[in-house]
């Protein structure tokens, strides 16, 4: 038995579907254009992998670089962010609140500003400026808050002080407590944060456009290049390659999320 719908149900449904089409239609268009022999004639003019192959020949390097930077960024965020999240969760006070606020700044301030600041202070260090490391630093700054928040939300929902004191009373030292009590409990947060960080790093453009050099192009930088100077079919095929990388991550993220209701219950 279907519940009785209000008179407003179908108009609202139609509106929601219209909004959804606005968001999804261009994605479908880019897939069609990237796989069609000729965009003007559409899929009826024949389908081909020619454009995808062309993208691979032109831009494979940017895909590899983006993946490498994303993984390095994840490693950096795990090393810096997980320990920091523990400290913030374990000792909530004015000072740690301030640190939490501060590390959010690279997300609150446009990436362009952060990139200019990095260039002005460190741009003259040639070896650093011209390497992928320069981009990596920007990505770590931008993604760190997401890792910290994700882990913090999980840890704050637990009474980690009591857990730790229990372990301490049984004779576990500080490092042992971290490894056997804190980290296993933080795992869902670390997992969600990791997926988020990799997704954001692969797609980061605003900062990367300023930080890259012709020899350190990433995927989104290559996309901007293709949009400006390649035919529509190649630009579309490249977009398809990008979507193939990012959409599976998004789907896993939604499935692995510890329940959206659980997350919003986290106090912070």
């Amino acid at each position, binding site marked *: 038995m279907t519940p009785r*719908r209000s008179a407003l*149900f179908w108009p*609202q*449904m139609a509106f*929601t*579907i219209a*909004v*959804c089409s606005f*968001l*999804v239609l*261009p994605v479908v*268009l*880019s897939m069609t254009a990237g796989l069609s022999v000729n965009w*003007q004639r559409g899929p009826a003019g024949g389908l081909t992998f020619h454009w995808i192959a062309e993208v691979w020949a032109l831009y494979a390097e940017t895909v590899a670089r983006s993946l490498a930077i994303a993984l390095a960024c994840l490693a950096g965020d795990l090393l*810096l962010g997980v*320990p*920091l999240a523990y*400290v913030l969760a*374990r*000792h909530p006070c004015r000072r740690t609140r301030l640190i939490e606020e501060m590390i*959010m*700044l690279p*997300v*609150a*301030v*446009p*990436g*362009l*500003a*952060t990139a*200019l*600041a*990095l260039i*002005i202070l*460190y741009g003259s260090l040639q070896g650093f400026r011209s390497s992928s490391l320069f981009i990596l*630093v920007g990505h*770590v*700054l931008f993604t760190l*808050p*997401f890792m910290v*928040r994700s882990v913090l939300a999980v840890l704050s929902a637990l009474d980690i*002080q009591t857990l*730790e*004191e229990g372990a301490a009373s049984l004779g576990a030292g*500080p*490092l042992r407590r*971290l490894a056997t009590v804190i980290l296993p409990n933080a795992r869902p947060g670390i997992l969600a944060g990791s997926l988020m960080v990799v997704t954001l790093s692969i*797609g980061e*453009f*605003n900062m990367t*456009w*300023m930080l890259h050099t012709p020899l350190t192009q990433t995927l989104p930088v290559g*996309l901007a290049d293709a*949009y*400006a100077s390649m035919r529509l079919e190649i*630009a579309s095929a490249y977009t398809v390659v990008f979507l193939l990388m990012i*959409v599976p*991550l*998004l789907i896993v993220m939604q499935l692995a999320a510890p329940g959206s209701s659980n997350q*919003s219950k986290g106090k912070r």
Partner: protein
Amino acid sequence: MSGSVLGRDHRILVVLLGAPAVTVFSAFWLLPMARLAVFAGTGPSGWNAYLAVLTHPQYLESLISTVLLSVAVTAATLGIGGVTGFFLSRNEFRGRSALVGMLTLPLAFPGVVVGFMVILLAGRQGLIGLLTQALGAGKLVFAYSMGGLFLGYLYFSIPRVLLTVMAAAEKLDPALEEAARSLGASPARVLRDVLLPGLKPALIGAGALCFATAMGAFGTAFTLATRISVLPMTIYTEFTLYADMASAAAMSIVLGAVTWAALALARNATGASVAAAA
């Protein structure tokens, strides 16, 4: 107090665990930003570079058009996201989660990709142009104008607002609406007296987030229109084309302060933190 049971080892450990992140952040964000703020004052006009955003006609025009665009996008997105988000949180039907999934898909699209989506819709070879041409109305192309930017900003803003509204609507007790209805309130009155007040914090939060994201968005404008001077594009051209680095630095600091303030407002309104990833 917290250290009483766990002792000095624990305190040392806490410092050691927090130090790496704080050090990296200080060296690569705080220090460069401080340098950028000072650098802005080293140009030919000195500290007046900060005022130039308001006094230099071209910069002022860019600031005004960016603010107007962001306000328009925020208003439109709140309307669209409010209606769809509330609808999705209050109704159960088959395919609902698939619909939510599709509506939040663009969340991880970088601005450049969003720009390209607009080109596919309204560009020189875009779908809208092909359709209007086929209908004999001439080719309608507006991707590379303010209209295209508006469409693009709408594209990346809707998913964010939608999620915020859905989360807030789920916490709002449907019994309130039913009570109002059973007492004879019209749908318009339920909206005005029950729903809008209940969703107000979420709408303010989502609106501020939307505004901040639109103000700082660079990728979409970069793909669509190098001629339209929204503030991030102006900063970019001053820095790269005219090498007026002091002005670019001053404008980035001003822009950063604006987006940060908008997000701080969002946080105070919702009581929870929100994150913007343009």
